[in-house]
């Protein structure tokens, strides 16, 4: 079997490396219903200069290599956009102006302090008729701003408590190429930066998507489009719409509805997703959605979180390459939420006896005490809080919950198992006391491990047989060269035939009442071959699945599901859950 699969997998590797993900978050011109992105000309060379005080100021940590970090960040944006960034060297220019120089400066001058207003950084972007002509990035270079003795401090060394130069420039220069903010917590374009975190160095899928959308870098991806409106009428503008991978539970792209309540999220990697809509009510708030200020989009954030198909059982949507999935209307309802989650943090103890470790992201595996801030988070049962997907998990009852003026907090034990794929995850709070659903997309970031890890992930409902659900599980991980890896089928009627289906893509296709094909049979690697199930032991069958030590498999995914004949069911068969196999 493996010999037959291998050539297909090699083809799959090539296909996957050609994929990229895009979305739509531009700084746009035009009115609330007619967004037109502002961009640099396609493939342009963009010269930039760095103020000659940079690196020498007191706000930079000794030993930091600031200019190389700047170069690295803009080069990364160049790869995403197809632009070429060229460092023209240092300049005595201290302040932003329309002077033909794309400037990066931390100079502590009155003009810069006026522009910053006490913030960490700001970018001015100049454009004419949709073409960006200049940008200037200003970092706050005063040790006494926003308050005496409480300035911001920058480093390239990843030191806790210092703001990372690379991540900072990724964000600000992202504005410089036409990107607006993202509402996904893990994105480089998220409007807040945390001291000590390095996560904004790496573009999230949403960043990649946003840049690719406005610079036409999309290949092999699909789109999702629709409208958000209140039940009974009235379109909803300024709503945050985002996708969650239905296999892993990771967040992917997001976008916003514009003036007519419409949204388009493009550059989506082929796969299956759930679509959520949440109000822009913090931590990403109306003030971070600049289309409200510049393009006349009137934000409606007085509705409660909803999902395509309903929050009780969100629709699983298949996105195919080159296709636009029109999902029609997603209905939302008021009144304004009374619950909200606005911040998460990590601690080394189950109670807040020590300072939180902030949002210190790590590669899997790890365990931590995980805290949530927000309105009403101390209320209701612990079971109301869950992470979407099969990986990160709240592993026990909360160890701390308090109500405070203006905010509340709660602390849980959290486990990130070793096989957790890197990416960002969604915390869901389904509060039975109010009936409200609250989501915090991207609030948990799992960094890529030094050595990529293989994993399996069960997903999809299948359909039960006459003896109950049929389960497909992996034993071990599909690591390259792991001869001991196997999959086990259990719960089916014994003495029947089983048909293993291995496909390149997942699916969510209803094939009967309550019965779903969770793999895309059109991408099957080989013809169905029947395997006789044992008559004893409930028909349980373990199939060896030795993984070749073939580097071409690294990073690829296949999706497995098993059809089992079952004459005792109306359809004559049962379907197992599906199992994603990620090879590394």
């Amino acid at each position, binding site marked *: 079997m493996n010999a037959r699969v291998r050539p297909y997998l090699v083809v799959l590797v090539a296909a996957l490396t050609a994929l990229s993900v895009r979305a739509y978050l531009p700084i746009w011109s035009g009115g609330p219903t007619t967004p037109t992105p502002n961009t640099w000309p396609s493939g342009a060379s963009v010269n930039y200069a760095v103020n000659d005080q940079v690196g020498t100021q007191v706000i930079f940590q000794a030993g930091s290599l600031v200019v190389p970090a700047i170069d690295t960040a803009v080069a990364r944006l160049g790869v995403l956009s197809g632009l070429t960034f060229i460092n023209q060297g240092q300049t005595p220019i201290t302040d932003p102006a329309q002077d033909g120089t794309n400037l990066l400066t931390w100079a502590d001058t009155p003009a810069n302090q006026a522009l910053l*207003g006490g*913030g960490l950084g700001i970018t001015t972007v100049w454009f004419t008729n949709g073409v960006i002509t200049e940008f200037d990035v200003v970092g706050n270079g005063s040790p006494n701003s926003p308050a005496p003795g409480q300035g911001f401090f920058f480093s390239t060394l990843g030191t806790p408590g210092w703001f990372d130069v690379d991540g900072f420039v990724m964000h*600000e220069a992202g504005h410089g190429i036409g990107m607006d903010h993202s509402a996904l917590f893990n994105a480089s374009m998220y*409007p807040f930066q945390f001291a000590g975190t390095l996560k904004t160095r790496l573009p999230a899928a949403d960043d990649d998507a946003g840049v690719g959308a406005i610079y036409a870098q999309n290949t092999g991806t699909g789109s999702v489009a629709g409208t958000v409106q209140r039940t009974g009428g009235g379109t909803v503008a300024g709503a945050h719409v985002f996708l969650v991978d239905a296999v892993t539970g990771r967040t992917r792209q997001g976008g916003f509805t514009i003036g007519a309540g419409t949204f388009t999220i493009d550059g989506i990697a082929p796969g299956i997703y759930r679509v959520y809509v949440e109000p822009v009510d913090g931590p990403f708030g109306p003030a971070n959605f600049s289309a409200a200020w510049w393009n006349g989009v009137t934000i409606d954030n007085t509705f409660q979180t909803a999902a395509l198909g309903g929050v009780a059982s969100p629709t699983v949507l298949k996105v195919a390459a080159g296709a636009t999935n029109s999902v029609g209307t997603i209905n939302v309802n008021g009144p304004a939420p009374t619950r909200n989650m606005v911040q998460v943090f990590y601690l080394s103890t189950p109670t807040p006896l020590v300072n939180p470790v902030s949002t210190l992201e790590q590669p899997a595996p790890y365990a931590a005490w995980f805290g949530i801030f927000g*309105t009403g988070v101390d209320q209701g049962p612990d079971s109301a809080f869950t992470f979407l997907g099969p990986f990160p998990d709240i592993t026990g009852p909360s160890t701390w919950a308090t109500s405070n003026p203006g905010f509340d907090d709660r602390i849980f034990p959290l486990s990130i198992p070793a096989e957790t794929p890197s990416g960002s995850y969604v915390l869901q709070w389904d509060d039975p006391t109010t009936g409200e659903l609250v989501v915090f997309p991207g609030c948990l970031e799992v960094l890529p491990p030094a050595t990529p890890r293989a994993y399996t992930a069960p997903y999809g409902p299948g359909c039960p047989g006459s003896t109950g659900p049929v389960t497909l599980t992996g034993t071990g991980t599909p690591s390259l060269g792991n001869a001991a890896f196997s999959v086990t089928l259990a719960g089916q009627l014994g003495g029947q035939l089983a048909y293993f289906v291995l496909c390149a893509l997942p699916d969510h296709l209803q094939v009967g009442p309550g019965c779903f094909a969770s793999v895309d049979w059109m991408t099957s690697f080989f013809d169905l071959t029947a395997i006789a199930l044992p008559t004893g032991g409930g028909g349980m069958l373990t199939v060896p699945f030795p993984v070749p030590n073939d580097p071409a498999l690294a990073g690829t995914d296949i999706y497995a599901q098993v059809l089992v004949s079952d004459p005792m069911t109306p359809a004559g068969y049962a379907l197992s859950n599906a199992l994603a196999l990620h090879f590394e």
Partner: protein
Amino acid sequence: MLKPLVIAVVVGAVAGGLWCMPGPAPQVQRSTGIGYDRIGAARCGAPTKTTVDLARDAVLIVRAHVLTERAVRASGLIWSEWELDVTETWKGDLPDPPLLVREPGGKIGHVEMRVSAGVRYRVGDEVVAFIVKDALGQWRTAGMTQGQWRVADGRAMRATDRGRSTSVAALRRAVQITNEEGR
């Protein structure tokens, strides 16, 4: 015991490029009972301030109608400038008219300059504006969007208020209390 946690939190979000959270030295702010913004984060400066903070910071607090908008060039940038027709002064000494409030960004001819977010005013709106002077001596909105309430039917609401308005009378009273404490 809870203080370290309180220190770390920032609730809500404010405009103006990249902000940060959390930081090491903010303080819990007492509530005015107005809005929901009761926690400050001094490390991050402008991002979140209470109404009391904003009132303390502001050198001028006015109720006004927005009369005009225009874009001007100043200090090498394009700024938007709004003329406010003041009907009530709640704090500070009103300068000789016109009162012109500026925020970065705007369009002159075909040339446009943007910042990634920011506060804007709409001609025709009635507002309560908490105003400061910046390092260049320009009148600016305190705390960006936090310092601008739009007024309608006797109630005031900010972009950050999630649809929850407060009465203008209550807002004025809060400012008065802060003014009295400051004397």
